[in-house]
């Protein structure tokens, strides 16, 4: 059974249709990326998946007892609320000292454990949020614009980390991104959204689909090819090999 399935889901807000007859499913172990222009309903779709919104028509089915790890794009924490990164990990479930230390270490933010969440940069906060999401051993990991504010090398490193997470936990991963070329290379399946599902499938398929080109133009086509090439290497030669390529392409595209 799918982790999450949306069937024929429509939703309007303030009289304006936001999503129309959206049908999609996310399976265990796959990385799915949601792309779409601003206002295309990406955030609304995420809210439907986590259950924060109910559809007007259609159904959202979650696997029973589904554990969701959610990493928002940004988390606004009131400065009046004292919250260290370490303490943040223990919400909503308490986490032991060793486990917390390991999670922060893995996310590369062990040195920030005692810092206040409000003092962290956007990227640092997102790493702490990822550590928190992974501690819950999610079956479905949801990342909203995870690479915004990262340079291309940072983004590439982030996607390698996501790939490792998938292999370790076997979880399904749902990404939302603007960051088309890097994202697509790291993805099994791309869903292009613009109020409805315009097109869907393997990255190469979507990138060449007329619906996608109508939305995003053909400008990213070249860069996508480069990154796809890098990604193939990643699967054949392991992560060390991919790393070198990543830097070359990153410089070339930037």
């Amino acid at each position: 059974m799918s982790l999450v399935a949306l069937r024929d889901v429509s939703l309007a807000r303030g009289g304006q249709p936001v999503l129309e007859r959206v049908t999609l499913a996310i399976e265990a172990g796959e990385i799915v990326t949601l792309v779409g222009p601003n206002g295309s309903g990406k955030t609304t779709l995420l809210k439907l998946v986590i259950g924060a919104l109910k559809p007007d028509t259609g159904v959202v089915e979650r696997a029973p007892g589904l554990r969701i790890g959610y990493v928002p794009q940004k988390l606004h924490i009131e400065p009046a609320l004292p919250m260290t990164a370490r303490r943040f990990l223990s919400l909503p479930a308490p986490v032991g000292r060793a486990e917390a230390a390991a999670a922060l270490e893995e996310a590369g933010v062990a040195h920030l454990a005692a810092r206040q969440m409000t003092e962290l940069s956007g990227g640092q906060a997102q790493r702490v949020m990822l550590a928190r999401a992974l501690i819950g051993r999610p079956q479905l990991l949801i990342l909203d614009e995870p690479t915004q504010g990262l340079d291309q090398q940072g983004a590439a490193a982030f996607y390698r980390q996501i790939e490792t997470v998938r292999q370790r936990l076997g979880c399904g991963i749902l990404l939302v991104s603007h960051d088309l070329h890097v994202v697509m290379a790291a993805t099994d399946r791309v869903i292009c959204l613009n109020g409805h599902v315009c097109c869907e499938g393997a990255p190469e398929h979507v990138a060449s689909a007329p619906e996608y080109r109508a939305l995003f133009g053909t400008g990213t086509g070249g860069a996508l090819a480069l990154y796809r090439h890098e990604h193939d290497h990643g699967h054949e030669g392991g992560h060390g090999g991919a790393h070198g390529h990543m830097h070359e392409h990153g410089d070339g595209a930037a």
Partner: protein
Amino acid sequence: MLDSFLMRAALAGLGVALVTAPLGCFVVWRRMAYFGHATAHASVLGVALGLALSISVVWGALAVALVMGGLVAWLGRRGHSSDAAIGVISHAALAFGLVAVALTPGLRGDLTAWLFGDILAVTRGDLAVIWGSAAAVVALLAWRWRRLLTATLGDDLARAAGIDPRREELVLVLALAVVVAVALKVVGALLISALLVIPAAAARPLARTPEAMAAVAAAIGVTSALGGLWVAFLLDTPAGPSIVCLSSVIFAVTSFVPRR
């Protein structure tokens, strides 16, 4: 020892301070300060209703505070600018309350007691109500502590963890209504929100975690309550305002501490 009115006053202040501290932290964290204010104002209407219907004033205040809290939460969820909505409801409830009190025979003279509290007139029965309710609210907050904190961090974060943020908000509304109804007699309608907000705000610079902030707020609240009573006794000043004055002085002092 409960025979001494001062001892009863001290125990009442202690009980109220211990429960307003953790609840006040949520009021500060969730920017509900005005919300507490509105609930407290509305409780004056509850006092009038309680007296008019010859039921306990605490029940009247509790009922009105609950309706008020629910109404404001509902308006907020419907996307009304809660600032303006709460402002209107808060002042309307206070004004209707004052008019209702004026229309209730034999109550005019007692009005200041409900606005500013009369901690020196606390009876043994009041003490039982205050401590019983305080214990219940503290237990409620402790039981749902992590869920409340997660919901405070964000609706979506809570939803993804299987927590309904609206339910947690209702828990806080309920707790706030109970505390307002119970604290009414001690510090009065106008000073309750001060007792919710000031100790928590004063504790912020001294704390690094939510739990530490609640504990420090409790310590500051207790110090203010007992110290304020002592000052009131020494200088023959009104007890409720003296307690709030002292907590404000502590706030002024801790605000010079750099945040940790």
